[in-house]
């Protein structure tokens, strides 16, 4: 040992073993300090948020709609909107992302044309990871909401299932009369006596039409079904939970698909990394046993890559749930009183609500924004907890 140190004394700039060990210790401390910086930053932010948000926090906030009165404002519609949109996003992004990663990692082509195609995709994915999310919002609006305009206007469905249309009249007796219409763009009904309409309780009645200047009938029951011939109607629709239309419009599905674009590169790159980390010996063993390439992927490679893929999924969903910019482009709704009820429905998401509250002049709204952040973080943590559970269940030692 002493000989050793003498030798190094002569040759290396670090005079002694002791000195080198000290340097080593300093370096470890430096690394610990830099690691602590990010933790401290997070702690400061969380403290600030909880300090601002917790005093006024109650379950009422989670269960009520937004409001112009800060003490009554809630986040329910946006919470459900976020869950719907992120659900759609996960449903599309994870299968597509993982499949793409498998193609890129496990099925490397031998033909030259295909090799070129392969590297072209790889290059694109690496570049897409750096595109600002607002750009994806614009793409989503063009590609999903408007379908590039090939089906006409965004707000008019070219094809749809699950909607029934009515013309809503208010009769002279202040009752609602619904006249069934064939389609969204059908012409308004011609008003003449005997036209069949539904009342709000669902029974069919015959409408009694009178002239624009005629005198009103006296009996309440006649008045209830009486319309003037110049009465104005509004086209309304009743939609089932499976309502679907093309072009997709500015609904939940478009929001989810747009967020899918935002997170796909993350999912693909993370899945590729974890597939790459699977030792080749495993693959060779499987192939040596006579398994096909697909069987190898299915039974050997993919199961051992699942933990890494799950990590990628966590990162991706955390990003999706916190994205405000693309959603602002897609629908930008900051006030909505009800939860989404079908895939085409209007929605708002939590980051957008938080953004809106934070931009308000009143200080009370800033603490409402902090409450919103608390809810967003809780949902994010519960998302991640589930993914971590799955990861831990599937983690096998590779030996």
């Amino acid at each position, binding site marked *: 040992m002493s000989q050793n140190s003498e030798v190094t004394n002569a040759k290396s700039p670090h005079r002694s073993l002791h000195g080198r060990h000290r340097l080593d210790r300093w370096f470890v401390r430096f690394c610990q300090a830099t690691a602590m910086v990010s933790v401290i930053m997070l702690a400061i932010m969380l403290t600030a948020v909880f300090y601002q948000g917790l005093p006024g926090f109650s379950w009422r906030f*989670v*269960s009520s*709609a*937004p*409001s*112009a009165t800060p003490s009554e404002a809630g986040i*329910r519609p946006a919470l459900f909107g976020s*869950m719907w949109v992120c*659900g759609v996003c*996960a*449903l599309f992004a*994870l*299968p597509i992302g993982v499949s793409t990663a498998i193609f890129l990692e496990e099925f490397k082509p031998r033909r030259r044309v295909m090799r070129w195609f392969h590297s072209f995709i790889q290059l694109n994915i690496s570049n897409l990871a750096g595109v600002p999310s607002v750009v994806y919002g614009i793409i989503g609006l063009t590609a999903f909401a408007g379908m590039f305009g090939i089906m006409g*206007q965004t*707000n008019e469905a070219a094809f749809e299932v699950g909607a029934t249309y009515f013309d*809503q*009249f*208010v009769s002279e007796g*202040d*009752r*609602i009369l619904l006249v069934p219409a064939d389609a969204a763009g059908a012409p308004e009904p011609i008003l003449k006596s005997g036209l069949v309409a539904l*009342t*709000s*309780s669902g029974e069919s009645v015959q409408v009694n039409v009178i002239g624009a200047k005629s005198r009103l009938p006296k009996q*309440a*029951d006649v*008045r*209830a079904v009486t319309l003037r011939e110049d009465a*104005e*109607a*509004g*086209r*309304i629709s*009743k939609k089932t*939970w*499976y309502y679907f239309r093309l072009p997709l419009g500015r609904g939940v599905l478009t929001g989810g698909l747009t967020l899918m674009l935002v997170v796909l590169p993350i999912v693909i790159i993370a899945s590729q990394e974890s597939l790459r980390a699977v030792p080749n010996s495993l693959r060779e063993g499987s192939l040596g046993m006579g398994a096909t390439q697909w069987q190898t992927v299915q039974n050997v490679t993919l199961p051992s890559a699942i933990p890494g893929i799950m990590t990628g999924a966590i990162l991706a969903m955390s990003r999706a749930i916190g994205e405000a910019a693309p959603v*602002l482009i897609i*629908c*930008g*709704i*900051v*006030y*909505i*009183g*009800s*939860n989404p*009820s079908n*895939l085409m429905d*209007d929605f708002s998401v939590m980051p957008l609500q938080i953004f*809106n509250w*934070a*931009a308000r*002049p*009143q200080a009370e709204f*800033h603490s409402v924004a902090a409450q919103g952040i608390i809810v967003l973080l809780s*949902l994010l943590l519960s*998302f991640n*907890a*589930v993914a971590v559970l*799955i990861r831990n269940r599937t983690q096998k030692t590779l030996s």
Partner: protein
Amino acid sequence: MKLLEPFRSGTAVFGETVAVCFVCLALIGCGPTATTPSSTPSGTAPDLGASELTEIEGAVAIDGSSTVAPISEAAAEAFGKTFKNVRVTVAISGTGGGFGRFTNGEIDISDASRPIKDSEFKACQAKGVSFVELPIAYDGLSIVINKDNDFVDQLTIDELKKIFLREGGAKSWKEVNPAWPDVAIKIYAPGTDSGTFDYFFGDVVAKDSDNEHPRDDMSVSEDDNVLVTGIAGEKGAIGFFGASYYFANVDKIKAVKIVDPKTGEAVGPTPETIESGQYAPFSRPLFIYVNTDSMKRPEVKAFLKFYLKEAGKLAEMVDYVALPPSIYEVVQTHYEERITGTHYLTEALEKRTGPLAELYTTESVVDIE
């Protein structure tokens, strides 16, 4: 649990997550609430004398300026308490974005923090979209300075030009007025594509856009709260934004009195001076533009009736200023008689500017149809 049905075949991750979330939500007693279909309780005959107006169904889509959005949000919320089956949505695509969607017939009401532009007017004409222009509240543009700034009390429009224009380009307060100390000017301004920025420069400070240009060394932020913080932290700072941000932060910043070029009086922004029109030329009206076709729908009718009746109250609730009652009467007439078109363009589609009370009359309208 209907919500879950489309996702039955979903990935385990999502299914479990949602299940977990639902369990949590069910525990705290707020599961998903489906919209309740309106029906009279079975077994009782409906009372034919009672009004069913509050039972009307439908949707009202509003989009546009984020400045006007708080008023529309307040209206949507209060309206929804009585009319439970009407879904009102308020979005914030900005005044220009809102007009874009309005022109395509995608929305019923467009929130605007400035009057319609000639290009937008022409686009509406081309697409056959006709509208009614309804001012709903005032927003006084406040010119604010740091609390420690004890030398500036009032500013004239010419002094503002020296501060805010590239052509004046004053670097320190001394250059604006020799009596003031040599403190550096630091300017905070809202986003260049906001209606506030447009109004401040386009309508007052840089009307002559060929020879007058906003400075390019301003600190610009889309978030007015950032401007407030910036001005509160620097002695030589000056900036401008909507009065609601000034009212909410009176303890941190102070407003400068502005000398009205017409009367020569220096007036500060208070709810009273903004409403009476004394705080000129920086009182700007906020508008909603309503699609005339949408006005035929019972739910839009009911919403507008409510909105216009309560506009003053709603505006004050979110720190804006109500219009004088006389103007609300003219607004009501426009709504009832569906007087379409704008008051802010001439027949030749050139911009008109002036006090709201002078411009907004039933006669001076340039029809869209």
